[in-house]
């Protein structure tokens, strides 16, 4: 986490409704450059919706998203992705029939901008470009230690490795901010430890800002620099892990209150 705490992203007074259902109600928080920011909360608290707002998949009825010091106009998700926001999904969303390297290469798609004609022929400038992007992808593959499955179709991989491939694909975009939707869901202790290590490594080595949703409190408390707690679409608490942990409202939301 950087010391000067410059704000990379800020969401202000977000309201998101689906018909009569209020998913997010007047939520504001910010994300510092270089930090690991966790979003936690019970089921249905609006965590994934929040990520979808940040990466532009949902357009909130009210509220603003500030990124890099500018207010973000309404954009399509792919345009937002180009500005440097990458994500992984709660349910893995990889191309199952494609190999690991092919999947990771799709993460570079938005950065490939040579003439369609050359790309079609796979010749000249298109080859140079592919080589350059392949190098970056190989670095990421090496970083996440998935070299041995480079050419394995991802559909045939175990769950924990698929999650890692998805992380690799998101990293291939060289994002400024990386959104991880339950990166450790369904993993055993050892896989969780591995994943935590990779998240910390990504944060430290690449300096990538990370916002993650996670249910395993032990993991969150270990990884996160700051934590946002949502409950029924409202902001319940915001602060360092220790602050949040001792917050009565949070304890009530998780453990329930006697009626």
């Amino acid at each position, binding site marked *: 986490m950087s010391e000067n705490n410059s704000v990379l992203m800020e969401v202000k007074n977000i309201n998101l409704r689906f018909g009569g259902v209020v998913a997010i109600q007047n939520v504001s928080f910010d994300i510092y450059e270089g930090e690991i920011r966790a979003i936690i909360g019970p089921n249905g608290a609006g965590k994934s919706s929040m990520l979808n707002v940040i990466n532009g998949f949902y357009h909130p009825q009210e509220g603003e998203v500030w990124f890099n010091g500018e207010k973000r106009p309404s954009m399509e998700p792919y345009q937002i992705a180009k500005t440097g926001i990458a994500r992984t999904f709660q349910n893995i969303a990889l191309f199952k029939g494609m190999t690991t390297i092919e999947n990771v290469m799709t993460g570079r798609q938005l950065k490939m901008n040579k003439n369609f004609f050359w790309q079609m022929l796979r010749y000249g400038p298109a080859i140079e470009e592919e080589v350059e992007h*392949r190098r970056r992808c*190989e670095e990421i593959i090496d970083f996440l230690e998935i*070299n041995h499955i480079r050419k394995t179709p991802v559909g045939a991989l175990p769950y924990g490795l698929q999650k890692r491939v998805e992380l690799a694909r998101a990293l291939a975009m060289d994002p400024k901010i990386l959104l991880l939707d339950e990166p450790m869901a369904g993993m055993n202790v050892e896989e969780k430890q591995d994943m935590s*290590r990779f998240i910390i490594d990504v944060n430290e*080595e690449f300096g990538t800002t990370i916002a993650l949703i996670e249910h395993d409190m032990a993991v969150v408390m270990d990884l996160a620099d700051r934590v946002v707690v949502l409950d029924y679409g409202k902001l319940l608490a915001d602060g360092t892990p220790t602050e949040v942990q001792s917050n009565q409202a949070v304890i009530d939301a998780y453990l329930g209150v006697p009626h």
Partner: protein
Amino acid sequence: MSENSSSLDTFPKVLSRNVSQFGNSPAYREKEYGIWQTWTWSEANDEITNLAKGLIKLGVKEGDHLAVIGRNRPYLYWSLMAAQQVGAVPVPLYQDAVADEMEYILTHCSAKYAIVGDQEQVDKIQEIQEKVKGLKDIVYVDPKGLRKYDKSSLHPFLDISGAGKSDDGELKEELDKRLEKITGETTAVLLYTSGTTGRSKGVVQTHKAIIGASSGANELDRWSSNDHLVCYLPMAWVGDFMISVGQVMVAGACLNCPEGADTVQMDVKEMGPTVFFGPPPLWERLKTEVNIRIEDASAFKKGAFQYFMNHAEKVGRQILEKKSVGIIDRLMYSIGGFVIYGPLKNMLGLTNVRIAYTAGEAISAELFDFYRSLGINLKQLYGQTEASVFLTMQDDSDVRSDTVGKPIRGVELKIAETGEVMYRSIGSFKEYYKNPKATKETKDKDGWVATGDAGYIEETSGQLRIIDRAKDVGKMKDGSMFAPKYVENKLKFFPNILEAVLFGAGQEKCVAFLNIDLSAVGNWAERNNINYASYQELASNEKVMEMMKGHVEEVNQDLAKDPTMSGCQIHRFLILHKELDPDDGEITRTRKVRRSFVAEKYDDLVTALFKGVDEVSTKTEVTYEDGKKGYLEATISLVDTQTYMLKEKSDAA
């Protein structure tokens, strides 16, 4: 190479010979970022020289010990050689050793520096750094994850070799001065034995010994600078040192480093080595994999495979050994080569293999013949750390699975009165480091070294045959011979049995512990609809017990035919609830069972086997990979087996 071998008695000299003779041919390759990166001999020489200069700048003195820990990478091989060049003694360590094993060795050799592969090793060393007093600096190759570490005594590899590169001449002068002092008698490496009994011993080897033994071996198998090999076995193991450093350097061959432990098989396939070394378990595993795939293939493919494999079994070996074979059989074999053997070898990555070695353990005749019948020149050799490995090897015309070959050039063999194999060799070790007592016990004043193995030289062929570890061979209560390893090997030849430990010295009957092979038995369980969640559950399955009982009885039947061994028949056995693990100290890192340790640790189980109860509960301490300890509880059933009477009465024993 033999004509000028006397002048080439140190590794720095061999290296400069390689630069002048094969300067532009590939010396090292490593797959990185999915691509094979190559260094020629002259490029490698530059890397080594720069690193050596950098080490001098770091403060490495002559005679200092420098530990090298990590997976097989060119950088670490260069580190070994750079250490030699500055007059320091390189000490390769097993990269999967736990922290306190490392502490023992680092303290024992009072290592001052360590060059390591990655964060994992840095963590381990820093954990023990306080206790290992003399350890000053750590150099690491892969910077991943180390960004936030305190860098006061931690240096990136590239900084060190970079400092050597940008040297203004002073370091070069110092290096030249030190190089001049290196002779054939200078220590080239300190290798720690795996230690089947007690703590491991440090074996001091000189330049002359390593180069002498390597040249002898290279001569027999005609190594050249066109040879390629893949290094994947632990760098701390003497075998890897001899092959990847000794033989490669002496021959000027090319060493290929895989991308990582998980990619070895794929990388071997891409590399197509000409020389390949694998311990018996590896050959076993490859064959098991082939069998599993064939089981799943279509009936036609299965049929073709069976047909041609049977044919290969009939004539393959004769063709490989250039014996006379009928024209029709030859024709069929070449068709087989086209449709089965060729593709199969290609899949195994063994298409270009000229010579394949197996050593370290006995190999079953069936397994040995399988590879040889495919046209792969698999050979046995025999040796040990103290001898710079090579003692006996097999000539191409005289290869067998039950013997280990004749002594190579520079080696004399004799059998002591006790039956122990003794040798005198150019590759003999100088001494055990800081252990003159053990040195004296092993090596007599005429230079004869005791191997600790019992064996004899076959009169008809002149080849050496190894029976067992000399100290393990004992007597049973009735006086008949007890040779545990002989029986264990017979058991381990079954693909379903991974490990076996036999007990019975001084007893009336023999009993055994077994470890099932999880991949082979697991596959069998899958095909037979047997559910299991863990090793423990599969090991206690009744059908698995039944299967093991069958295997044990087959071995008993086999033993009954041999009058000297019939006393070793197994009366009762059990399947252990956990796999024997080097982290728990039950087997060595090179997978040799530490018999007395196992007997002590599982004393309750051994007693139960001899007492004759049907079931026993036990609690075992286990060490996890990160060094934490835990307990495993289990109830184990003990199985009685059928034993057989001696078939033909004879007094030959």
